[in-house]
């Protein structure tokens, strides 16, 4: 009984930490994005609210919270609101299986810095990831706007196409690790002294493409394509509801998929890897904190890379995206899978 209470308390603390980190970081990533975009475009970005705009996310949030609640004529209210729940919940739930660092001991209790280490972690991530398609389809349908409908259909088409690609792309690292648990995959990479990106470059590139596509980032942001569809499926949403969709899509999902990419390809919390030889840790002086810093560093670098792409490239057309997925990406992942199956026994030794 006592063990259960302790477990419950630890779990609740973990949930709180995850929520705070995800929503807080998500909010501040908007500021980061605006700053990065601004400097790429030779502007200073937000400067007025707080020192260098540091309070800007709060001001934005406050503004969104005090907007009028509008609902489009002839729409479907229940589905309209359900879409929002369906968007937020699965995207955030993914963080339950992301390992932020190695197991550590605090007050005599062994704690894994993840909510729960289920043995089907990766499968869970992609199962939850494909839930996004429901939220988007519902949002577009319930809004009763043609722009919303077209935007949601486009996004649904992209997710449908890239869901297949991403599942086949991650099979490579899973074969090498031989487990679906996210924690164990990282542990395996450390044990084998190998980041899987060295053996899976194709899978990594495909994964990155699929990640951009699933999160609706440039060059795949056809669902919002402001020049054609105004803002796509969120066109009839207002206030905090409008704020949440981009938050979920552009920040929380990018964050979670970046974290998964780090777990699968970049060795999780491990420091810089020299293939088959070992690891090099320039941050050794941080002691036990170093793995956490490495993890955050890798995720944020990936995130910055996504931003960098976002503010450089034009966008594809929807049919080109879908065709790329089926005609280029999917065959590539098949090739990669067979290749991995052949070389995998060499790694296990």
């Amino acid at each position, binding site marked *: 009984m006592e063990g259960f209470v302790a477990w419950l308390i630890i779990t609740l603390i973990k949930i709180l930490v995850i929520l705070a980190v995800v929503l807080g970081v998500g909010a501040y990533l908007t500021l980061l994005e605006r700053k990065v975009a601004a400097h790429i475009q030779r502007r200073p970005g937000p400067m007025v609210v707080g020192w260098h705009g540091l309070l800007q996310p709060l001001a934005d949030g406050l503004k969104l919270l005090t907007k009028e609640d509008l609902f489009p004529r002839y729409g479907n209210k229940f589905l309209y609101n359900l879409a929002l729940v369906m968007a937020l919940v699965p995207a955030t739930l993914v963080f*339950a299986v992301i390992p932020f660092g190695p197991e550590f001991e605090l007050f005599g209790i062994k704690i894994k810095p993840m909510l729960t280490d289920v043995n089907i972690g990766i499968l869970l991530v992609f199962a939850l990831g494909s839930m996004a398609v429901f939220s988007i389809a519902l949002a577009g349908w319930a809004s009763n706007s043609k722009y919303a409908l077209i935007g949601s*259909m486009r996004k649904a088409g992209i997710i449908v196409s890239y869901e297949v690609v991403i599942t086949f792309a991650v099979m490579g690292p899973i074969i090498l690790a031989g487990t679906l648990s996210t924690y164990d995959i990282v542990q395996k990479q450390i044990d084998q002294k190998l980041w899987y990106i060295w053996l899976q470059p194709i899978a990594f590139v495909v994964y990155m493409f699929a990640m951009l596509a699933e999160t609706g980032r440039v060059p795949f942001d056809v669902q919002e394509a402001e020049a054609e569809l105004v803002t796509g499926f969120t066109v009839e949403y207002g206030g905090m509801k409008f704020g949440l969709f981009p938050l979920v899509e552009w920040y929380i999902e990018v964050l979670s998929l970046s974290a998964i990419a780090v777990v699968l390809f970049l060795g999780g919390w491990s420091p810089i890897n020299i293939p088959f030889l070992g690891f090099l840790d320039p941050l050794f002086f941080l002691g036990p904190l170093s793995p956490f810093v490495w993890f955050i560093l890798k995720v944020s670098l990936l995130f910055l890379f996504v931003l960098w792409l976002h503010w450089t490239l034009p966008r594809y057309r929807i049919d080109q995206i879908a065709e790329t997925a089926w005609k280029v990406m999917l065959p590539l992942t098949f090739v990669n899978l067979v290749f991995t199956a052949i070389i995998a026994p060499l790694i296990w030794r």
Partner: protein
Amino acid sequence: MGYIALLIFLFILIGLALVFVFVNKLLGPKSSDALQDYPYECGVPLYDKSAQSTFHQGYYLLGLLLLLFDIEAAFLFPWTVVYRYLGIFGFIEMALFILILTYGLVYAWRKGALNWQFEEESL
């Protein structure tokens, strides 16, 4: 145990999402304007009142393909985990499986299911 934690997290998240759904109703101002809930269509009268009609998108085939390939993927996942214990037999079986998958893809490709719908129709 691990799944119970997930369940707790799920409920907390649903609660949070509901807060976000209703927060604007509580905090936002209320105004009444005859056209404020008019669906957005660039400021002109709607041609058809409802947008919830049939919508030909060419995704239907993609959806079918997704079903097929995702189920195949679901078969492959357990295989990836236990591949190291299966040896050469596993490899051959998997290669056959992927070959069939590839054949399915090629079939769909040849049939034009992967082309965008409008290009096909103009043929």
